[in-house]
């Protein structure tokens, strides 16, 4: 039986010079198959961690490995291609058509034009944008744009999918729609979803990673986390706040 896919960070230290304090300091973190919710307050280091795990930001120290191979090592190109990243905000040119936007990101990520063209209908259908493939990005609603960005994250057929605040800026209906979409996504075996909307994390992930000041306060299964720390209401938000308070005390 083949070993399960694993994304791992060891001795990770990320800084933003000239600041000397670490924005992320993680000694050992292993992210296995399934979906993991990455939660933390603003400035906790969520985006920095996701970018580093995506191969988009070289850490000052430590290593990120995918199936044991160093993401920033000699096989970086191949490894990075196996990771899909949905950035927190991606304002593709408003004048681009939906299909062109997808094609552009495919080109960025090194997907051959012919392959990208073959994947396009499937991806647009997966995010519900197939009827709007010739529409300009500037004419899409906020929810549709987030779905388009999600499609761009899937253009490499990634084994690892990193989603940075995918539901930010969406109204409740759009959020629910995107949540459904994410739950039905095929393909990726390791998914990390960063959010400070605890409802999203609780519904969409099986594991939770609480980050504060760049450090891991908790990493475990989501349901027991809510049961153990969420008080009588079994509130995910209370569980998060309690963990935060405990970690800081």
């Amino acid at each position, binding site marked *: 039986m083949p070993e399960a896919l694993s994304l791992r960070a060891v001795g990770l230290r990320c800084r933003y010079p000239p600041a000397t304090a670490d924005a992320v300091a993680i000694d050992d973190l292993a992210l296995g198959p399934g979906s993991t919710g990455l939660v933390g307050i603003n400035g906790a280091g969520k985006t920095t961690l996701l*970018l580093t795990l*995506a*191969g*988009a*930001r*070289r850490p000052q120290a430590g290593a990120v490995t995918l199936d044991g191979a160093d993401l920033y090592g000699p096989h970086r*190109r191949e490894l*990075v*291609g196996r*990771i899909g*990243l949905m*950035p*927190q*905000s*991606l*304002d*593709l*040119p408003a*004048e*681009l*058509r939906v299909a*062109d936007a997808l*094609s*552009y*990101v495919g*080109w*960025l*990520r*090194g997907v051959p034009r012919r392959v990208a063209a073959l994947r396009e209908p499937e991806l647009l259908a997966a995010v519900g944008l197939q009827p709007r493939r010739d529409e300009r990005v500037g004419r899409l609603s906020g929810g549709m744009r987030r779905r388009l960005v999600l499609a*761009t994250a899937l253009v490499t057929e990634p084994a690892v999918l990193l989603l940075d605040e995918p539901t930010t800026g969406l109204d409740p209906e759009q959020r629910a729609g995107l949540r459904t979409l994410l739950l039905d996504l095929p393909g990726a075996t390791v998914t990390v979803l960063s959010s400070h909307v605890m409802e999203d994390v609780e519904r969409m992930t099986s594991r939770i990673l609480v980050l504060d000041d760049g450090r891991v306060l908790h990493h475990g299964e989501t349901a027991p986390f809510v049961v153990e720390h969420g008080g009588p209401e079994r509130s995910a938000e209370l569980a998060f706040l309690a963990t935060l308070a405990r970690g800081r005390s």
Partner: protein
Amino acid sequence: MTRGLTWLGDRRTVVLTLLGLVAVGLVPVLSDGTDWLGSWKLALDRGTFSLTLIGPVAAGVACTAYVRLATSGVEPLVQTARRPWWPWLRPALATWGLGAAAMLTTTLGTTVAAQAAGSVPYPRTLWVLLPALCVLAAQVAVGALLGGAGRRRWLAPVAAAATFGLGVLGAVGVVPEVFRAGGLTGSYAGETFDVTTHALQAGAALGVAAALLTLSNRAAVWRSWTTRAVVLGLVLGGGACYVAFGHGTHESTRPLAEPALVCRGHAPRVCLARETTRPLDDLVRRMQRQAVALTDLDIALPVRFVQPRPGTDPAPGDGGLQLYVEEELAGEVSDETAARSLATPAECPAYRGDAPPPEASFDARRLLARWLLVRAGLLEPGADDQDRAWLASGTDEQRPWVVATYDRLRTCRLGELRLPAGV
């Protein structure tokens, strides 16, 4: 839409940008008239001079594109690209392509127009477009740096102004002329573009472009060993070129070792540099009309009248042509120029020496030229002119002075020249 143009706008915007670049490029080309029609090399120079405004506008366009790119949130995806430097540099390359297309269109227009006006084409000098394209790369890189690093839309006009300012500073000698292309004075008669000067400028411009583009996003450009090697090579080579370019005198043109002449006519035979033959027929016609007065006195004309060329000593026996630069380039010359030229039957060394020739040589040539114009019916002396009486006298009275003066001018015995009595 092609991927290279992604951040420049939609097709309509790109086409309008290109048309705008061509339009602004025509401003410096036409700002000083169309003298360049008379010299293909000058027309080529004026074509590259269009970068004076195309470059700054292209820098502004690049700045806008990079502000859009850098603030779009796409940068993490750029960093995960197989070659991050490539998607990052594509907008600069696309802007450079638009600027290059505008400059080449302008140059095509000027050179074709010059050829149609009668100037002899010199396609072998087209290489001078390459250094100009390197200058454009440096200009665009200014915009890429300000947009990519500054990430503010209002930096676009700053980038344009800074690029224009760098060109001006180069033109006035404050900094080496890395950001300046074309715009030389003169007619290029007997001259060509200097390879060394342009190569140094191109090297320095490429070095500046490489450095600025790297600074615009070090994480993307300074990523692989290959790009580091290329950037280092360009920056170090460019630095060496910059230092060499900034020291000593580097002329953009040099005299041709064997400048070609085009000669026409008989009595007199008139030769102009091959670069500037546009006024030749008109000059021959006017000189022939006035030369009759000399041949009527049995005065032998020089074998030919030749346009002086920089770096070339006149051949013994040749007369000299006295054209103003604008006349070298124009379709017609004045009768005064024809007369002045006929009154110069030899290019005496004293005319070009450090010490000025005797004052009498100027006066004698001036009077001889006026005499030629009067004899040809092209000048009526004024009532107050000191030479009126002598010019109105008969040929018999004038002949001794004219014959002796022409002989002295042809043999360069300038010290023996005298004005007629009473003048």
